């Protein structure tokens, strides 16, 4: 396992940020999802060894998160969310510098900086001053400094924020390329669910400091719930109430379409039984394709 956390608990004073987090991640790309305040950033801090958990055990790439933070930071790459640069530098010097700080010999860091800058598509502009870079270029630069020391594990914090659609696609392609072909595990923290769905096969959803769901995205969508869309005639409010009492989550769209998130333990026949009971006619019924957005909404309980 590349990341293994057991019962991690962390408090900021009286506020519990992480509460008994258990995570096991092997290889590939994993999305870290959760609403604001769910504990995503705290989890990244714990994984990088900046914060010492109050309780629980954890290992990243086999290194103890309490004792071997330095070894962890040497073996992982981190791409922060906001713009990060050092003014007055060009991309080669910048990337090589952080390679050197990671423990690479100076000359090798410089050689490697050239390679990764070509890889992320900054080859032609690697001698330009960083202040003159566009938002997309800065994002690629952050990725370059994160992979310059060839990490085994890559933490990406909102990698596509502030990017135009084309820049976003290019970064996503890079991430997908890195995670699928380069033996580097990627952990992506993002609010953009489509990005996670595009790049990751595995997801961890945090809510209120706890793991609300984790697993392969395809399996989770099947296991957690089924989504049905239906149109009904009659007292739909009572039907909705009954469905909710049975543990379903029901959303009504503007065109009176009811989206019913049904738990795995319920049969769809239950919808018809309740409709019959409430004397509501079902005029349209379809099992809908579920997206990560639906899974997220269902798991976290937000729209």
């Amino acid at each position, binding site marked *: 396992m590349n990341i293994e956390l057991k019962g991690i608990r962390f408090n900021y004073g009286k506020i519990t940020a992480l509460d008994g987090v258990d995570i096991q991640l092997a290889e590939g790309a994993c999305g870290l999802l959760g609403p604001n305040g769910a504990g995503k*950033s705290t989890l*990244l*801090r714990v994984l*990088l060894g*900046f914060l010492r958990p109050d309780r629980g055990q954890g290992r990243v790439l086999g290194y103890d998160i309490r004792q071997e933070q*330095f*070894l962890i*930071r*040497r073996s992982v790459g*981190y791409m*922060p*969310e*906001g*713009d*990060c*640069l*050092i*003014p*007055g*530098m060009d991309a080669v*010097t910048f990337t090589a*510098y*952080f390679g*050197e*700080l*990671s*423990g*690479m*010999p*100076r000359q*090798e860091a410089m050689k*490697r900086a050239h*390679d*990764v800058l*070509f*890889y*992320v*598509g900054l*080859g032609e502009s690697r001698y330009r001053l960083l202040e003159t870079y566009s938002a997309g270029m800065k994002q690629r630069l952050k990725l370059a*400094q994160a*992979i310059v*020391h*060839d990490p085994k594990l890559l933490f990406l*914090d909102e990698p596509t924020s502030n990017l135009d659609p084309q820049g976003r*696609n*290019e970064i996503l*392609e*890079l991430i997908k*390329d*890195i995670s699928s*072909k*380069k*033996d580097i595990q990627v952990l992506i923290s993002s609010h953009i669910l489509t990005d996670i769905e595009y790049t990751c096969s595995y997801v961890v959803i945090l809510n209120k400091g706890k793991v609300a769901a984790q697993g392969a995205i395809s399996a989770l969508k099947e296991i957690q719930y089924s989504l049905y869309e239906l149109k009904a005639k009659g007292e739909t409010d009572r039907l909705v109430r009954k469905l909710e009492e049975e543990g379903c989550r029901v959303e009504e769209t503007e065109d009176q379409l009811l989206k019913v998130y049904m738990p795995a333990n319920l049969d769809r026949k239950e919808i018809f039984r309740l409709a019959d009971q409430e004397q509501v006619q079902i005029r349209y019924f379809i099992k809908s394709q579920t997206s990560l957005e639906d899974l997220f909404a269902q798991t976290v309980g937000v729209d």
Partner: protein
Amino acid sequence: MPISEKGYAHWQGTFIDRKLAWWPITRLAVRLAFKKKGFKFAFFGSLIPAFFYLAGIYISERLEDFQFMMRGSNRFLEVNPAYFRTYFTGDFLLFMMVIIMVIGGAGLIADDLKYNALQLYFARPLHKKDYFLGKVFTIFFFLMFLTLVPGLIFIIMKLIFAGSLKFLATYPWLPFSVVLYSLVLTLFFSFYTLLVSSLSKNRRYVSILLILIYIFSDVFFGIFYGIFHNPYFALISVKGNLQQVGAALFKVKAPFDVPWLYSFLILLAICILSGFVLKKKARGVEVIK
């Protein structure tokens, strides 16, 4: 999609454990400082007094040859501890040190705060102390060039020009005074600069603050001394305190009638305060926002 002009390849090398983990930080900061507009001019301009003092040492050993120039000013060319004190605590040199700090040191932490570089540093196997040492040694590098290096060269050249060790026999403690006072100046200015640099994200504010504190502390001393005629007001002057300690270390009469230890304690207090603020600042850093 042609995102990669060149394919990714794994790095086959091995990591090294640097004993001086701060060294890349210092090296880069020194390099970047020399790229700044006006820095080379200020830095090499600050060495001008050193050349004059060196010439003075040469002339002091060849007074007969330069008699036509002296016209009774021989006493100024007497190379003794006071000569060294005058160099080290001269207004020009101290002011130029501040200017060098303004151009080359103001952004050391302020820029990292402004451009969120701290999270990149601390995501590396780097201690906070290594980060700060990297910044401190940047200032050390510049100031030692203006203090320790000329000071030791003065002594060596004096011995060479004199052709004897008499000077060293008379003042055997002088090399230690040079080293010690260079350290006092450098340490103080390092902590002072980093303290002010960590207080703002804006390099310009930091620059202005560095100069204002230095100049106005001396201006206020002048005003209060003029009104109350109390030499203890020298303790509020950064320059005054540095000169007091300098006089004590070179064993010459202090410019103000105040125990030098008070000045030393004030400088020390500023350094301790600075260390405390820096530690707190680093602790407060939101490495991941």
